[in-house]
């Protein structure tokens, strides 16, 4: 099923003001409803290598697999949509690739990457994330974070060790508790959300949400929702105007219309022949 008529995608990635390298990596395939964002870490250019491997492995593999199996099909064993299994498997594959490269080549030692990836299908979106790259949703007036960081700060917040006020001043913003490529296996967190036309989904690296408050991100998306590309550029610009201390990447996906999967077997056959 081709989603290019149902989704509008805009993205922007920038090294920021302070850093010389852009270790973020983004990929999008509108037709297959696939967006991937990774924020790499590791000395020299290893961060770029890790995030580049993550987006490349996951996008290229998923592009094939989404053609083979409809992502909305329910996997009998788990009762979950096939998309989640595909995401999980390909994230595991990317993890292995990065981990092995880091093990075998000294210059890549210790490299890793955070990840947020989304697959749109059947009026739904499955979002997988690892680390502190985030997904948000603007629905009507409401701007809301869909992912929960795998970070020390978030754990401190959850366990009540610090308050949200203290969190703003924490020195620990940069410690993630999960990343791709650091250990032989990694467990992504995957959630499925219902999608409505006119929703806007934002995937971003921490370079955005560390520099621009959620309130201002939401306001910008609302103000500029008519021009997605401008909204993406504006968000990056705001991060840079506020100091631009990290690489900043955003992917925006606007749902233009309903994209329910064909329901009956005849409709499926028809869409398959198309």
């Amino acid at each position: 099923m081709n989603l290019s008529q149902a989704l509008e995608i805009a993205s922007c990635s920038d090294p920021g003001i302070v850093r010389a390298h852009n270790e973020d990596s983004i990929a999008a395939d509108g037709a297959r409803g696939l967006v991937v964002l990774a924020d790499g870490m590791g000395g020299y250019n290893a961060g770029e290598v890790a995030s580049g491997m993550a987006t490349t492995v996951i996008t290229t593999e998923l592009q094939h697999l989404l053609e083979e199996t409809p992502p909305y099909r329910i996997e009998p064993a788990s009762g979950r949509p096939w998309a989640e299994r595909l995401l999980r498997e390909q994230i595991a594959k990317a993890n292995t690739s990065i981990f092995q490269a880091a093990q075998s080549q000294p210059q890549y030692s210790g490299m890793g990457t955070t990840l947020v990836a989304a697959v749109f299908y059947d009026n739904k979106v499955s979002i997988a994330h690892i680390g502190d790259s985030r997904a948000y949703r603007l629905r009507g007036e409401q701007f809301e974070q869909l992912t929960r960081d795998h970070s020390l700060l978030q754990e401190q917040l959850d366990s009540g060790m610090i308050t949200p006020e203290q969190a703003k001043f924490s020195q620990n913003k940069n410690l993630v508790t999960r990343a791709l490529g650091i250990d032989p296996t990694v467990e992504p967190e995957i959630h499925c959300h219902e999608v409505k036309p006119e929703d806007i989904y934002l995937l971003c690296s921490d370079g955005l949400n560390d520099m621009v408050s959620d309130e201002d991100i939401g306001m910008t998306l609302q103000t500029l929702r008519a021009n997605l590309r401008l909204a993406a550029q504006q968000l990056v610009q705001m991060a840079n105007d506020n100091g631009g201390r990290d690489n900043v990447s955003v992917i925006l996906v606007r749902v233009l219309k309903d994209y329910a999967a064909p329901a009956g077997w005849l409709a499926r056959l028809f869409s398959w022949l198309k």
Partner: protein
Amino acid sequence: MPAKLILSMDGLVLKEIALTKERTTIGRKPHNDIQIDNLAVSGEHAVIVTILNDSFLEDLGSTNGTLVNGQPIKKHFLQNNDVVELGKYKLKYVSDQTSKAAAPQDFEKTMVLRPGAMPKPEAPKPATSQAVPTMSASQPTPTAAAGSPAPAVSQPVRPAASPAAPQAAPPTSASQPMSASQPLAAGGRVAAIQILSGASAGKEMELTKALTTLGKPGVQVAVITKRPQGYFITHVEGANFPILNGKVLDAQAHPLNDHDILELAGVKMEFFYKT
């Protein structure tokens, strides 16, 4: 300089301990890093996990408990001048705030804490449920850290930001998201738009927000952005682009100067600085 603990009893300072290790154990038994030979102190009483500049105190299920600033705690994020009490003994936590400025290389580089290194909160909650109990309410989270390996902070990572990067001595530094709704932008000067033609001629609008949209949604919309360098106008939607001083703009952002004349959807307006 690492943070340190000052051990005292009845106001008498017994010794100072620098928190150089990732795990500093406190207890009565001799294998502890800080041994306190007193029967009110459990064999393995508590542990302090130190990650970079932050230290976390955790009670290891001791018989008589651990107090911080007079409150019993299970787990606690130590802050400068916190007083930890184990029986009659007091440990004052002193972290030299200025030491943070001395490590610009480590600042803000993302690092990975290995899974299992820190006590995990129970079940992941959805992002929206942010009901966060306050710190003093000791949380009965499972004390997974007790038997788990020391937190291994992996190698540093993102290449050092240029050493000249603005360094955060006081924690109120730039790492806090600045609110664009009250920007220090445009050199502190506030500008406004005055409508010159049409039904609302004479109306004035102050440009105090980071973004102000002009025009009619669905017909023609432009946005004025307030930035540190000044104000800019950008086309947002519609077939026609805004006209600035008689010239049709392109899709790029254009800087606005005092007394520029804008035309949007047939309405003329003037941009000017208020002060």
